[in-house]
């Protein structure tokens, strides 16, 4: 398969007062890639996701998605274009059931999100919805409120809600943060299996080097709002500069 460029950032910069959260970020993501983004707290990882998804507007530079300029396009429009994201702190509908939440994503994907006469619970949606929950290991919770999920489940549902939108690019913000050490790899195994099966271009932000090492095929290291290294995990994570920036030691 020839490389097709999905995302391109050109000199993207953003400052908050004196703090430069993104400092001339330039990078490309090709179709089918699985990219891990590492960096210490405050290195600009999440800011980068916020810039790509339109939550923040860059002060300078451009973001191209599938070759089209989408700099500063608001989140809703970005989502419609095909970029979906998950959140470090799961963004769920706590008073809806797990299945209802997912059905809403499926309805949105089908362009029926604002239909006000057809029922949410349609047969055409329920079985794919349950199937998707099965893949995410959430089937047993289908009829429970989202607020009743354990933390790992909350993370998975947050990602499932984005995945159900059938994006062309999936951005995951710290998929394992807040998940216990025992569950961490299980959550990642589940996710990576789904991503691999659907050949979805995925970028995940992660501060846990072990997770990045194990699951990504390419790593971008962030420090002070810049990309300081970009390449295959073994090489990037062994780089003394990266180790110093991310771990604070070599």
């Amino acid at each position, binding site marked *: 398969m020839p490389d097709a460029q999905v995302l391109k950032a050109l000199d993207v910069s953003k400052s908050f007062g004196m703090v430069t959260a993104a400092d001339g970020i330039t990078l490309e993501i090709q179709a089918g890639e699985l990219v891990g983004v590492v960096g210490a707290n405050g290195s600009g990882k999440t800011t980068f996701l916020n810039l790509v998804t339109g939550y923040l507007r860059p002060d300078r530079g451009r973001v191209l998605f599938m070759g089209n300029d989408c700099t500063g396009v608001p989140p809703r429009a970005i*989502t419609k274009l095909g970029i979906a994201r998950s959140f470090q702190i799961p963004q769920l509908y706590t008073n809806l059931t797990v299945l209802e939440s997912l059905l809403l994503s499926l309805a949105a994907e089908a362009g029926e999100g604002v*239909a006000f006469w057809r*029922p949410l619970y349609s047969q055409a949606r329920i079985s794919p919805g349950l199937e998707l929950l099965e893949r995410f290991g959430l089937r047993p919770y289908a009829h429970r409120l989202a607020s009743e999920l354990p933390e790992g489940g909350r993370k998975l549902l947050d990602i499932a809600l984005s995945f159900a939108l059938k994006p062309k690019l999936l951005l995951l913000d710290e998929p394992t943060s807040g998940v216990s050490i025992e569950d961490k790899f299980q959550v990642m195994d589940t996710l990576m299996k789904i991503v691999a099966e659907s050949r979805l271009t995925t970028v995940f932000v992660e501060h846990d080097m072990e997770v990045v090492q194990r699951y990504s095929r390419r790593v971008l290291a962030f420090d002070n709002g810049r990309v300081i290294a970009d390449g295959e995990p073994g090489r990037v994570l062994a780089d003394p500069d990266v180790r110093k920036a991310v771990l604070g030691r070599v």
Partner: protein
Amino acid sequence: MGAWMSWTPLVGAALLVAVPAVLPDWIVFIVALALAKFMAVLAVALFLRAGMVSFGHAMFYAVGAYTVGFGVKWFGLRDIVLLIPLGALLGAAFAALVGLVMARYREVFFAMLNLAFSMMLYGVLLKLYWITAGTDGLSAGLPTFLGYAPSRESLRVFLYYTTLVVTVIVVFGVYRFLASPLGFYLKAMADNEIRIEYSGESVRHVVYVTYVLSGALGGIGGVLAGFTVGHIVPEYSFWIQSGDFVFVALLGGYTSVVGPLVGSIAFEFIRTYASKYFPNEWQMVLGIIMLAIILFRPGGLWAIYEEVVGRFGRRAREAKRA
């Protein structure tokens, strides 16, 4: 519990159908008025689900009532079957206009902006004497039903059953609305607007569509109340009326469609009896009831009922087993 619950709507509907046959005229009047107001209460309840409160929905209620007033006065239009959809349409149109501003706001701004718009309408209705007759108000006159003019004696019953039929249609319509993706987004809004936007949907659109629907509901309620009471005054748009709608939604419980219905009927009776037995303190009675509801059963009367039925159902099952 299942068997008990599935009978409830039928029993409730049967009771409502039986009202004019078995109860005196003044009660028929009270229930008809309660049903008319229920539609406006339902409009308010929709927003309560989304975590938003409106202190101005009486404006749509007034639009409906004045549709009747002007319809009769200017066009000699007094057919209720025509005026109901017309009131719904004008209520919706008014909401479509006001909603352009309202859909941008949440929380206290939404509450107070609604109040502001309703009081502006109140001011207009009050001051434009040569058009609206100010506090003298307009007379609704006697309605016809698809051209048929019932006798004065049977009018009350005709009006009652018309209201009841409209109630059934409204309950069905709002139920469908709440079961739709947009209805669920409305509920989801209270939890998380960010996730909705990141699903590619517009929260503002959800609010706007709901607002237009709520305007239509208020309009229908206003038409029916206008005919039931017979006299249309600017107070229809007054903030106390809006406050009543919020009060009733909380009293009955806003998480279901039935809650506001139960609340409306209960409210009219509480008010009638409270003002009969405590003529000077009846508002205090309402206040105490509200306090008790909020403190002990924030789900409202309907939640209390569900709880009681649940307990009875459990006891019945246990008795069966024993």
